[in-house]
């Protein structure tokens, strides 16, 4: 059994009806409920719900504060390598793109870690492209091992692997894994991913499940917003998360909301998502998933980030560089453009000025993988 069955049995006609025909009264009734089911959630994605977005926001904000408190956690991405064998037309690491390629050496990794540790970070997200030859499992395992000397929480955003390989990374000390589906729209997926291992839609779709079986404690999910219809992506994400919750009750799913920010202007975003639509998506998902941590990257502008901190986001990055060696001022190619260049200290001040506590450490090295 796989999530693909749920995906296939999703009734698009019914969904479109809900999106177009839900009325305000229904939405207000839903907002009065303590917990909502999936059919109510779909109504929060409706066009009419978008009209009364502030009413959704009030509930989303309340639920976030009640569950998480007035707390913002910080993390920092570390790009270990930008080498990649995939041809994904929206991505800066596309194998056909002419950028300076780089995979950090062990010494460079240590230097980056040290620099980030000195800045105050305690939660890192290690990233690579998909290049098993140059930045494969042994390399990533070594990077995780090294990170344990500096950070309490180690998350990964690397290419999809088999359970056994993931297991090695969990044993090495990685607690989190992020695998964005990019899009649940199979046709669009096919168009966007022209070649390489990533072209296999099902292989990617089943990755969160393999990661859960391998014992990662946190599993990051998300769609790359701008590829397909955001309402469909939100509906699929909620369905996918619900599927995982019921099968892997010990694992915590987290959600990211990356909007496409291509490093070059050659790429035309097929279905641009406005800030208002992004906020509706976040609010609806928050109300459906009150316990799920929401992450926010530096892809978004300072203004929007400032506002989202007080809405439903629980974890943010600050001062991110999206190229390997970026914190040591290396010039290797970036994955995407950053819109918010404020550093950690500035962001801590901002968080505090909004009446929130900035938290750098929220994990223990003694928390190990989930034994199966």
């Amino acid at each position: 059994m796989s999530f693909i069955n749920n995906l296939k049995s999703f009734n698009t006609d019914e969904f479109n009806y809900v999106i177009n025909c839900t009325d305000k009264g229904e939405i207000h009734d839903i907002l009065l409920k303590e917990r909502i089911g999936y059919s109510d959630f779909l109504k929060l994605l409706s066009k009419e719900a978008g009209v009364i977005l502030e009413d959704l926001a009030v509930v989303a904000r309340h639920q976030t504060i009640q569950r998480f408190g007035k707390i913002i956690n910080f993390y920092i991405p570390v790009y270990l390598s930008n080498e990649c064998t995939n041809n994904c037309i929206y991505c800066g690491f596309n194998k056909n793109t002419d950028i300076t390629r780089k995979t950090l050496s062990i010494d460079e990794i240590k230097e980056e870690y040290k620099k980030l540790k000195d800045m105050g970070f305690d939660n890192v997200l290690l990233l690579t492209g998909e290049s098993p030859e140059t930045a494969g499992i042994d390399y990533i395992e070594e990077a995780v091992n090294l990170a344990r000397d500096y950070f309490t929480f180690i998350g990964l955003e690397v290419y999809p692997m088999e359970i056994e390989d993931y297991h090695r990374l969990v044993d090495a000390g990685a607690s989190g894994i992020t695998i964005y589906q990019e899009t649940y729209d199979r046709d669009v997926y096919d168009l966007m991913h022209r070649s390489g291992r990533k072209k296999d839609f099902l292989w990617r779709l089943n990755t969160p499940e393999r990661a859960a079986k391998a014992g990662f404690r946190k599993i990051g999910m998300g769609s790359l917003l701008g590829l397909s219809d955001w309402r469909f992506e939100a509906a699929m994400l909620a369905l996918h998360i619900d599927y995982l919750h019921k099968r892997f009750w010990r694992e915590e799913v987290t959600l990211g909301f990356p909007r496409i920010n291509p490093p070059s202007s050659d790429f035309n975003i097929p279905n641009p998502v406005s800030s208002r639509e992004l906020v509706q998506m976040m609010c609806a998902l928050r109300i459906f998933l009150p316990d799920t941590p929401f992450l926010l990257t530096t892809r978004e502008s300072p203004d929007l980030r400032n506002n989202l901190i007080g809405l439903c986001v629980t974890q943010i990055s600050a001062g991110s560089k999206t190229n390997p060696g970026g914190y040591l001022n290396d010039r290797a190619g970036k994955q995407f453009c950053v819109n918010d260049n404020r550093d950690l200290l500035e962001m801590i001040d901002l968080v505090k000025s909004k009446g929130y506590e900035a938290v750098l450490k929220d994990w223990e090295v003694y928390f190990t993988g989930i034994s199966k």
Partner: protein
Amino acid sequence: MSIKKESSFHREDYLIIGSHKFYSRLILGTGKFSSNKVMSESIISSKTEMITVALRRVDLENPDDDILSAIDNNKYIILPNTSGAQNADEAVRLAMIARASGVSDWIKLEVTPDPRYLLPDGEETLKASSILVKEGFKVMPYINADPILAKKLEDAGTVSVMPLGAPIGTNRGIKTYELIKIIIEQSNIPVIVDAGLGKPSDAAIAMEMGADAVLVNTAIATANDPVLMAEAFKNGVIAGRMAYLSGMAPESNTANASSTLEWISKL
């Protein structure tokens, strides 16, 4: 226990947990405050004497760690908790390292393998409690409102049991009323209602039932005015405690309680 039920409410009413005497019956959680300043002021206005701190948020290698340095450990008992631990092994390791770093030999044991509702795992909690009691810790386990588990933990030597009123952070009040009543009736160690108390009246109900203390975090930390809410909870706890000590009339009998039945004594 040292409660004098016949006495009026004054300094004589105190609570002993692990041979330490407490005059406040409100324990404060620190997890959700918007700043250390608001937390410190709430601590003062709550008149609490015991404060729980998540070890996962503490940097034990850095003595200037924010949360710990914001709390005066001469004035308050710091009760480190193992929030985030998914099994007995993780919780035990955390407790050990906290004690080795000089934080405390008190431990609020939280073993919550489910990251969504954060419900406690009774089996693993019992296992960890047995180990930590033998290691000399004063163990205060967070549990479901399970009377049998409460007795097993007491037998294992924990200094209290902390049954939940409702899942953490829900502010739903005492949804486990009937079971907590049984735990209180059967317990020889303090029963502290932990989690789910959403308003001072919930705390008052717990105390009226005969709970020895309550622990509150979310309802205070996420109020618009946490400092005022901390004081309100303090008063709720005192009111409930006074009502308990005063020997409340049972609800159903109040209608005819004053009718004259003196003739019975003359029979």
